[in-house]
């Protein structure tokens, strides 16, 4: 990590992919090529444009990608508006990595994994999924449930169809909120779909998405017999420093930037309900 944790380095946006009407994926390289720094799946980076804004984003690409980092970012005001209108070649500043990663090399190893993502919640999970696929033999069966508003809102559907769906011992279950012409897959909300799919409970679940979706999906999982210790999720709060000092993301005796963003759901019970 950089000696001065608040001082960023320069990153160059080398590719921009329009995934959905409001999500773009930005590829970032160090000015001399390669990555700005190494990370683990689930960790975040602080991106900024001086004078415009600075914000924390989960790193979407897997650390097994040796060439670049990617960030799937939803347009939702402020700095993200600016990001959505830049062109390839634009410099940004970047610092990190921040936070705790998913326990890919410990608790998740050897397990059957159930990934559940809603909307932009796929961004942090994509890093884990690609990591696990790159080390396929380290993990058991992989199920991926991914839901979005419409078929047009599924982020990077090409990778999902061409890579994930063809990967060994991986099942992908897509769903959209409302029926849509040309969509032949499942229609319905993620929490209900998860219950319908009736997974066996000998899996570890990784759950990311809007707070309300997390809440109901966790309830579904518990009804199916999952214990909170089997479910990991990520939390999002406003951040400034990224290192547990500015006080911004403090919740209970934890700092989301430092102690999170990945939490096991039973750990969340110790925190006051302020998220």
């Amino acid at each position, binding site marked *: *990590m950089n*000696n*001065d*944790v*608040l*001082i*960023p*380095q*320069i990153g160059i946006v080398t590719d921009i992919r329009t995934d959905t009407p409001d999500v773009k994926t930005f590829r970032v390289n160090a000015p001399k090529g390669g990555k700005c720094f190494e990370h683990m799946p689930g960790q975040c980076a602080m991106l900024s*444009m*001086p*004078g*415009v804004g*600075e914000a924390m984003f989960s790193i979407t690409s897997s650390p097994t990608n040796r060439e670049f980092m990617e960030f799937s970012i939803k347009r*939702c*005001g*402020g700095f*993200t508006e600016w990001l959505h209108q830049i*062109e390839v*070649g*634009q*410099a*940004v*500043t970047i610092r990190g990595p921040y936070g705790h990663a998913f326990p890919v090399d410990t608790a998740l190893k050897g397990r059957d994994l159930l990934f559940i993502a809603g909307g932009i919640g796929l961004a942090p999970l994509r890093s884990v999924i690609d990591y696990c696929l790159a080390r396929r033999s380290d993990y058991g069966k992989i199920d991926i449930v991914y839901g979005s508003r419409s078929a047009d809102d599924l982020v990077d559907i090409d990778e999902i169809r061409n890579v994930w769906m063809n990967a060994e011992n991986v099942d992908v279950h897509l769903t959209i909120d409302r029926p849509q012409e040309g969509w032949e897959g499942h229609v319905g909300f993620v929490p209900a779909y998860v219950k319908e799919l009736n997974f066996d409970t000998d899996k570890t679940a990784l759950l990311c998405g809007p707070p309300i979706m997390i809440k109901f999906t966790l309830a579904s999982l518990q009804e199916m017999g999952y214990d909170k210790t089997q479910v990991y999720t990520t939390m*999002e*709060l*406003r951040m*400034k*420093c990224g*290192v*547990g*000092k*500015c*006080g*911004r993301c*403090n*919740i*209970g*005796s934890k700092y989301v930037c430092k102690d999170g963003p990945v939490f096991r759901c039973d750990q969340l019970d*110790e925190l*006051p309900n*302020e*998220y």
Partner: protein
Amino acid sequence: MSKMYKISKERLDELYAAVSAVKSLYLPVRSGENQSEFKKWSDQSDVCLDSLNTVKSAKELFFPQSENLISFKVSGKDIELVEDRDPSEPFVLFGVRACDAKSFSILDSVFLSDPVDTFYKSRRENGTVVTLACRAPEETCFCGTFGIDASDPAGGDVKTWLTDTELYWEAVSEKGEELTKLLTGILSEADADADTKAVDDLKKNTKEILARLPLADLKLDYFSGDRLNEKLNDVFYAPQWQELYKSCLGCGTCTFVCPTCQCYDIRDFDTGHGIKRFRCWDSCMYSDFTKMAHGNPRTSQLERFRQRFMHKLVYYPANNGGEYSCVGCGRCLAKCPVSMNIVKVIKAFGGEKA
């Protein structure tokens, strides 16, 4: 115990000048009636050692209200980083009361824990802290609640006591010894008997005043113990907050005067020649503190008010071996426009006299 030195009160200007000749000297300077602030000494300074607490605490010498982190030059699609941190030079901080001296160790646990905040660290390393024992603690003081001894301040590099006629001086760290060496021509050795007695009398007198203060019996029992983490939700959801928060205006004054409040913001400023990125004090009492593009986890003043005191009395101690993030300096008692403060919170949770 290292050697005690002294200098007569009349000659303090000589002491200030001698320190100033080698390092910048910051000490309490009168800024209004019964008001002082830590300022850099010059021979014009109206030094004020009799007012008890400076308006803002001494933390700003290590964690300034605003400081540059870096600058950027932006041209077209390019960004260039321009080193632009405020320089930090060796300095002496004189006249620090026991409560403020203790606050440094509380801030250290935040800024010096991994990953180290290098801005804070270089100021800490450059600073030599000369404490000044209290002679006349005030009604708003409750440092004793936190085990702080105002008559014999810990946490500095030199301890001093000021009687009607003399300033007594005792180095208590290597940095303190070094500073003392620089002042050999100015300080004289204290007398083993008479001077030791003068200091002991001062301590004794201060302790007597402390024992009679209205807040002397303020107890933190409710917030004590190593099971704070388990109790955390009980405190959080306690009915007391519903009443306590009501008068709070969310003005943030309490956080700005507080020696242990450490929240900060990072902002950019367009100078016309580039972008300066600086950090500045912020307050969890402000409504936009936790505001995000798509929501705010603390929408009410109750939640923000609760956050400040939960942090000081529960979260910080849960993470720091039971040590509180308050030193009982009383600034928030004196400065809050609606007389809401941490003492009222402690009392509402059963901290009153038995």
